[in-house]
C-alpha cells in the first residue's frame, strides 16, 4: 500500500502539518510566565507542548521519507522561511490574549476536523499519528471554544477585544483550506481527506459558534495566501531567527 503513495507529495504534506504545529507551538510558548493567571500559564504551555509534540512526530515521518539523510531537528532548525509550508496565520505574532485565543480556536477547529479525516488515512503511520493528535486536539478545542464564549459574552472590553481579533484574523483562515497538485494526488490515493469537505465542516462549526458568541464576521479584508508555496509574512523570518539561533551559530553540534 505504502509503495503506491507518492513519497515526495507525502513529504511535502507532512512538512505542511509539522510547520503549522511548530509555529503555533512556538508562538504559544511565548506566553510562558506571562499569562493572565497561573492556571493559564500552565494551560498555554501545555497546549504549546502538545503542538510541538505533533510537529515532532510529523517531522520524524517526513525525515524517514526523505532521500537525503535528514533528521526531524534539521527539518525544523535548518530550513529557511521560504521552505516553511505553514499557513500564514500560524506565524503571526501572539498579540493579546484575545488574539491568541481566536487564532487558537480557528486552528483547533481546523485540526479537529483535519485529524478526524486523517485518522482514516490509507497511510497507516499518518492515521496513527492523527489519532493520537486528535485526542489532544479535542481538549484544545473545548478550551478555546469556551474561552471565546467567556470573552465574547462577559465584559465590554473583552467583547471588543475578541471582536477585533476576529476582524484581524478572519481573512487568514481561507488559506487553511488551500491545496496544491501534490495534495490532490494524496487525496486521490486516500492518504488525506477532501479539503472541500473539511472546509464545509469548519465553516458550519465556526459560523454556529460565532453566532452563539454574538460575534460578527468582517466583510472585507486582505485574504492571506502563499504559505503552501513558501511565501510568508515578515514575521516568520524573525521567528526562525530566534528559534534556529543555536543550530545556526554552532553548526553540527550535539545538544
Amino acid at each position: 500500500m505504502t509503495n503506491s503513495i507518492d513519497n515526495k507529495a507525502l513529504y511535502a504534506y507532512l512538512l505542511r502539518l509539522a510547520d503549522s504545529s511548530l509555529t503555533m507551538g512556538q508562538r504559544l510558548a511565548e506566553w510562558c510566565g506571562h499569562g493572565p493567571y497561573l492556571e493559564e500559564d500552565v494551560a498555554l504551555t501545555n497546549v504549546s507542548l502538545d503542538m510541538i509534540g505533533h510537529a515532532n512526530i510529523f517531522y520524524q515521518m517526513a525525515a524517514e521519507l526523505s532521500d537525503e539523510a535528514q533528521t526531524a531537528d534539521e527539518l525544523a532548525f535548518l530550513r529557511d522561511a521560504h521552505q516553511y509550508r505553514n499557513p500564514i496565520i500560524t506565524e503571526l505574532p501572539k498579540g493579546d490574549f484575545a488574539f491568541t485565543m481566536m487564532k487558537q480556536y480557528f486552528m483547533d477547529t481546523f485540526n479537529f476536523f483535519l485529524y478526524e479525516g486523517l485518522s482514516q488515512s490509507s497511510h497507516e503511520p499518518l492515521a496513527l499519528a492523527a489519532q493520537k493528535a486528535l485526542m489532544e486536539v479535542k481538549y484544545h478545542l473545548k478550551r478555546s471554544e469556551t474561552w471565546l464564549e467567556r470573552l465574547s459574552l462577559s465584559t465590554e472590553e473583552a467583547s471588543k477585544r475578541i471582536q477585533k481579533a476576529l476582524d484581524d484574523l478572519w481573512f487568514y483562515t481561507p488559506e487553511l483550506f488551500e491545496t496544491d497538485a501534490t495534495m490532490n494526488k494524496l487525496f486521490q490515493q486516500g492518504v488525506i481527506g477532501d479539503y472541500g469537505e473539511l472546509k464545509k465542516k469548519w465553516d458550519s462549526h465556526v459560523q454556529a459558534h460565532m453566532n452563539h458568541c454574538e460575534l460578527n464576521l468582517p466583510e472585507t479584508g486582505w485574504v492571506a495566501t502563499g504559505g503552501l508555496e513558501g511565501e510568508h509574512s515578515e514575521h516568520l523570518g524573525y521567528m526562525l531567527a530566534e528559534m534556529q539561533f543555536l543550530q545556526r551559530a554552532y553548526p553540527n553540534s550535539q545538544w
Partner: protein
Amino acid sequence: MYSQGLTDAKGQEEPADLLAEFQAKIDREEKIEPRDWMPAAYRKTLIRQMSQHAHSEIVGQLPEGNWITRAPTLNRKMILLAKVQDEAGHGLYIYSATETLGVSRDQLTDELLTGKAKYSSIFNYPTPSWADMGAIGWLVDGAAIMNQVPLCRASYGPYARSMVRICKEESFHQRQGYEIMTVLARGSQAQKDMAQRALNRTWWPSLMMFGPSDKDSKHSEQSMKWKIKRFSNDDLRQKFIDATVPQAEHLGLTIPDPDLKWNEETGHYDHGEIDFNELFQVIKGNGPCNKERLQARINAHESGAWVREAAAVFQQLQSEKNKSEAA
C-alpha cells in the same frame, strides 16, 4: 515554658496549655492540619515561607522561559516547556497549601507584585546562554532538592504533602539539567566554554540559596523547634557542595572556587568564603534582574486583568442563568 515570647495576632500571650499540646504533637512527629489550633507565629512563619516558596516557583518560570523559544532541538524545547510548566504547577500547589492557612492567593500575589514578599534570590540572575538551562537544572534544582526533601517531613501537613510531589518532579529537573551539561561538556570547545561560563555564573548564587550562614539566620531556631526546618542552612549547603563537586569533576568542569578542597579530617569539602553581602543586596532588590523579573510579573498581571475580569463576570452570569433556569 513554650509560651515565652509567643503572642497571638492581637498581641495576647498564647495559652500555655494549647502551646504545650501543640509542641508535644510536633515532637511526636504528628502533622498539624489546617483546622488544628496553632500559634499565630507558627501560622505567620508558614505563610511567609510557603508564599516565598510559591512566588519563587512563579518568578522562576522567567529565567528558563527565556530559552524555550530558542531551545536547540525539538526534544530540548519540549523538555524545557514541560519543566517550566511543572514549576508553574508547583506554584499552584503551594499557593493552594498556603490558602489553608487563611490567606488568599490574591493577597499573596499582591504582596509579590508590591515587593512586600520575597522570592528566591537565584531568579534575579540572568540566563544569557543555553548552558544556563543546564546549570539551573543541575545546581539550582539540585540545591532546591536539598532544601525541600526535608520539607516533605515538615510539621504542617499540607506543606509536607505538596512537597512530596514537588520533590519527585524536581529530581527529574535536576537530572535533565545535568544531562544538558553532560552533552555540552562532551561537545565542541565552544560548548564546553559555554558550560564552564554557566557554572561560573551559577555556582556562588546557588550556594546562597541555602540562606545566610547559621550564625546570621534569624528564623532558624524557632523553625527547627517547630519542625518546619530540619537541618541548618550551613549543613544543607555543605551536603550540597559534597554532592556536587564530584559531579563537576565528572563533567570535567572547574568549580570557580580556588579554596575548594577535600578535607580528610572532616570528610567534607572546604570551600572559600561566600559573599553574603551579595545575597543581602539581591534580597534587598539590588540583583542584576530584580527589576526586570518583578516588572515582567506586574506586566503579566496588569495586561491579564481584563481576562480575569471577563472570566469572573462570565461565571457570575452563568450561575445567575442556571439559578433562573432552575427556578
